[in-house]
């Protein structure tokens, strides 16, 4: 409470919090405190947002937020950085994004929505951005629908909220699934409601009959039931019929086959019995069954839908959609949509830009980061005429490239295409319930046939038919087929509460069969940050430090930049540098302060080092040829990597590392994690990665980079971890929200528990069906009994699934996330 009151006063700027950043509420210490006009912030981003809100009179934002007890928010990306959206305004993009001319509408995915305060703030935007006419925010899928004025200044929205520290991604008209999903959703909702109303009334009337409404009432109520069940077995059941047709075409059995069979048999027999005035009438059971089925499937779909809405947009490869292209006639560069690139065109990129196409370098030299293919962040130096692959990042000042291949014809394009194919074939595998169905349908069919002859030979054909039908109806796995999606839905929920977003419930089916677990190295097992691990600067006299700084400032290489940042603060009377030279892929040299210095990478890494450090480079500084100091650069393992790996080993999985990185680094990791070296693959191409995974089989792949996408999609269970590129997330079955490996164990536990639950349910429903079926054949089951039995079994199954789900919760002791 005190805390919140403190922040309220902050909003009006009276009292200063000793401890918290005024904007994001981050706890402040000496290291991260920025002070401006007596107010404290954790970073410039926060400061500028705070001041902007104040200037616009929008600082109510803070008081609203405080009433929601939200004291911390993600600090904004520094407004200076982030992509500039100017390209949205150039006419050539409108057709990609604008979904509605009147009013002029564009949809955006907005990152960083926290609570009503964000809602309030963002929906205020039209008040002070004249180019925006109106906008409405949808917090369930974090999309903003924005109507622009006729000036068509589409950049105004993303620019505006960037100032507040949100990030907006324009949604292409084609890639925005939400519209389609909504229509889907509405349809099934309507189906559901029809089933509900009809089934409800049928239940009411049947209840009246069971309660003893006789004579005229009974007749008419029956007829009414017949009529009411018509829409249920027609319109509401369409999805089942569609599926069955589909499965017939593909020749793959689905659980909908018995369902449809039951629906038909149930309805027509009931109708027949009604007309012939015999009491076996199942309208109530049938319609109720269909309703429950629709309900449970709707539930599963909505859960999945909500999860995929929560799925953050990975920084997609081609997120920026415009590129500077040289118009040789005009002798200048101008913006053009990436889509319209052609081979032979010359394109220019600024530092940090991604190459949108394969091409030959036109500039003299460039530092290019190939992480997209290797997963490694150490750039390679490319010189004029060499080939650069699409997706790699320019790590030096601007460069010009001559396009040789675009879109699908780029190497990346080819990879992605293959990846997509793998994934599609993978998700269409038959699911557990389907396999269950196949067996089941056969069994019932056979038994029904036999028993028909058996019974009818004793009691005559009509009785035989009666009982056989009763048998089929009772032994229908009704409960099972609608409880299954239900329990899956519940598990998806609890999984997401544990920080795992699961795309396809089928994963629970495959998880338990996994034997081989493949790890990508960089960014998965390690933090993927290339930094100075150790450098004893004090041992280096000050003049030398300045000299080194001076020399390294000449270079673009990340090593150089790392060194420069480390030495920043020494920037007083920097000596003049003469004779600076790049020693390619080795280092740099030059003279400063009257001495000659060289900084070069040495091959020999044999040197004991910190437990988590993975040394990639060893730089030796020579002063006039004499080694004076050495710098170790590299990556480091994630804290929990060791624990998780050993835990997995205990559970008897065989573990692999597949990395695009140099052998030496991979070996270090394998050594430190005690993974047998023959299981550590280095310098693997993306294509090769998927091969390896496929060869081993029964596999789980864990990765983040685009170079893992192939492996992710060709493994049985692909798990993308936080910070993955969009392409990898798209093709993985699960996405982990935490930047840790521990959650992998969680995921596996979930797999185990749900399998258990499903097994239990299956066993139960089989026994139930057999018993019920037997009774039916002996002629003990009358409509009333059936009407009672069906819901009863359902309740039991639902209970059992809930029980299982609670178990996972207690196991992880996870509280749902707000």
């Amino acid at each position, binding site marked *: 409470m005190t805390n919140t009151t403190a922040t309220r006063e902050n909003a009006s700027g009276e009292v200063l919090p000793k401890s918290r950043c005024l904007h994001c509420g981050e706890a402040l210490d000496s290291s991260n405190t920025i002070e401006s006009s007596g107010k404290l912030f954790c970073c410039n981003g926060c400061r500028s947002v705070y001041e902007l809100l104040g200037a616009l009179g929008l600082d*109510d934002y803070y008081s*609203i937020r405080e009433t929601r007890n939200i004291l911390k928010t993600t600090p904004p990306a520094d407004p200076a950085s982030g992509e500039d959206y100017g390209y949205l305004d150039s006419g050539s993009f409108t057709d990609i994004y604008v979904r509605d001319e009147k009013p002029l509408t564009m949809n955006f995915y907005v990152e960083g929505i926290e*609570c*009503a305060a964000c*809602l*309030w703030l963002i929906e205020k935007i039209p008040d002070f951005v004249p180019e925006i006419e109106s906008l409405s*925010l*949808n*917090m*369930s*899928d974090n999309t903003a629908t924005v109507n622009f004025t006729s000036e068509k200044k589409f950049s105004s929205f993303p620019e505006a909220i960037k100032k507040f520290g949100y990030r907006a991604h324009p949604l292409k008209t084609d890639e925005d699934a939400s519209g389609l999903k*909504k229509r889907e*959703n*509405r349809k099934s*909702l*309507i189906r559901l*409601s*029809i089933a509900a*109303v*009809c089934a409800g*009334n049928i239940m009411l*009337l049947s209840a009246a009959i069971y309660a003893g409404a006789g004579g*005229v*009432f009974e007749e*008419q109520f029956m*007829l*009414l039931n017949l*009529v*009411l069940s018509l*829409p249920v077995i027609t319109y509401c059941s369409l999805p089942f019929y569609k599926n069955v047709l589909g499965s017939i075409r593909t020749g793959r059995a689905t659980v909908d086959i018995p369902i449809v069979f039951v629906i038909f048999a149930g309805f027509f027999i009931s109708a027949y019995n009604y007309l012939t005035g015999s009491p076996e009438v199942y309208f109530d059971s049938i319609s109720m069954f269909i309703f429950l089925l629709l309900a449970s499937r709707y539930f599963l779909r909505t859960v999945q839908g909500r999860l995929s809405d929560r799925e953050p947009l990975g920084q997609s490869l081609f997120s920026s959609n415009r590129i500077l292209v040289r118009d040789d006639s005009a002798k200048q560069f101008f913006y053009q949509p990436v889509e319209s690139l052609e081979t032979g065109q010359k394109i220019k990129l600024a530092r940090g830009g991604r190459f949108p196409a394969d091409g030959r370098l036109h500039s003299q030299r460039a530092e290019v980061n190939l992480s997209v293919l290797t997963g490694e962040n150490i750039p390679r130096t490319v010189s004029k005429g060499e080939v650069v692959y699409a997706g790699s990042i320019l790590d030096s000042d601007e460069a010009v490239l001559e396009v040789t291949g675009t879109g699908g014809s780029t190497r990346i394009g080819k990879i992605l295409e293959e990846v997509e194919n793998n994934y599609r074939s993978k998700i269409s595998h038959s699911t557990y319930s389907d396999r269950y169905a196949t067996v089941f349908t056969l069994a019932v069919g056979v038994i029904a046939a036999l028993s028909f002859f058996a019974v009818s030979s004793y009691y005559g054909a009509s009785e035989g038919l009666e009982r056989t039908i009763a048998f089929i109806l009772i032994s229908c796995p009704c409960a099972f087929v609608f409880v299954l999606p239900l329990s899956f839905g519940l598990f998806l929920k609890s999984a997401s509460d544990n920080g795992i977003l699961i795309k396809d419930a089928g994963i629970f089916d495959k998880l338990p069969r996994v034997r081989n677990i493949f790890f990508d190295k960089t960014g998965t097992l390690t933090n993927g940050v290339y930094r100075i691990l150790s450098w004893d600067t004090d041992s280096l006299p000050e003049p030398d430090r300045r000299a080194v700084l001076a020399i390294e400032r000449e270079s673009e290489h990340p090593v150089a930049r790392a060194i420069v940042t480390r030495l920043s603060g020494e920037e007083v009377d920097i000596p003049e540098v003469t004779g600076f030279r790049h020693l390619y892929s080795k280092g740099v040299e030059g003279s400063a302060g009257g001495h000659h210095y060289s900084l070069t990478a040495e091959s020999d890494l044999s040197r004991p080092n910190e437990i988590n450090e993975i040394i990639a480079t060893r730089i030796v500084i020579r002063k006039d040829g004499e080694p004076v100091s050495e710098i170790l650069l590299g990556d480091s393992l994630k804290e929990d990597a060791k624990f998780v790996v050993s835990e997995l080993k205990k559970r008897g999985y065989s573990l692999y590392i597949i990395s695009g990185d140099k052998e030496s680094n991979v070996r270090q990791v394998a050594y430190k994690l005690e993974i047998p070296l023959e299981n550590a693959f280095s310098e693997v191409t993306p294509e090769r990665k998927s091969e390896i995974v496929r060869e081993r089989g029964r596999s789980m792949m864990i990765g983040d980079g685009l170079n893992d996408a192939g492996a992710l999609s060709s493994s049985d269970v692909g798990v993308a971890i936080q910070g993955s590129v969009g392409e990898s997330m798209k093709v993985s079955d699960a996405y982990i929200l935490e930047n840790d490996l521990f959650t992998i164990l969680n995921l596996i536990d979930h797999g185990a528990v749900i399998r258990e639950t499903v097994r239990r349910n299956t066993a139960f429903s089989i026994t139930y069906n057999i018993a019920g079926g037997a009774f039916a054949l002996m002629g003990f089951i009358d409509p009333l009994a059936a009407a009672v039995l069906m819901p009863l079994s359902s309740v039991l199954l639902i209970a059992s699934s809930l029980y299982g789900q609670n178990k996972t919760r207690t196991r992880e002791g996870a509280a749902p996330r707000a």
Partner: protein
Amino acid sequence: MNIIFLTLGVSIAIALVFLAAFIWAAGKGQYDDLETPGHRMLLDDYDTDKKKQQAKEETGK
């Protein structure tokens, strides 16, 4: 007997009508977003209350 025929027609009418209600709402997308309305209603007169506050402060007291 005619009463029964009435009830029969009527009960079908119920079914139809409750659907109409729901189909209208669902079809119109009233239920597409079941998050935001809960939050938005909290802000519906937020600005007014705020202005009242300010007005009071200005009038001193």
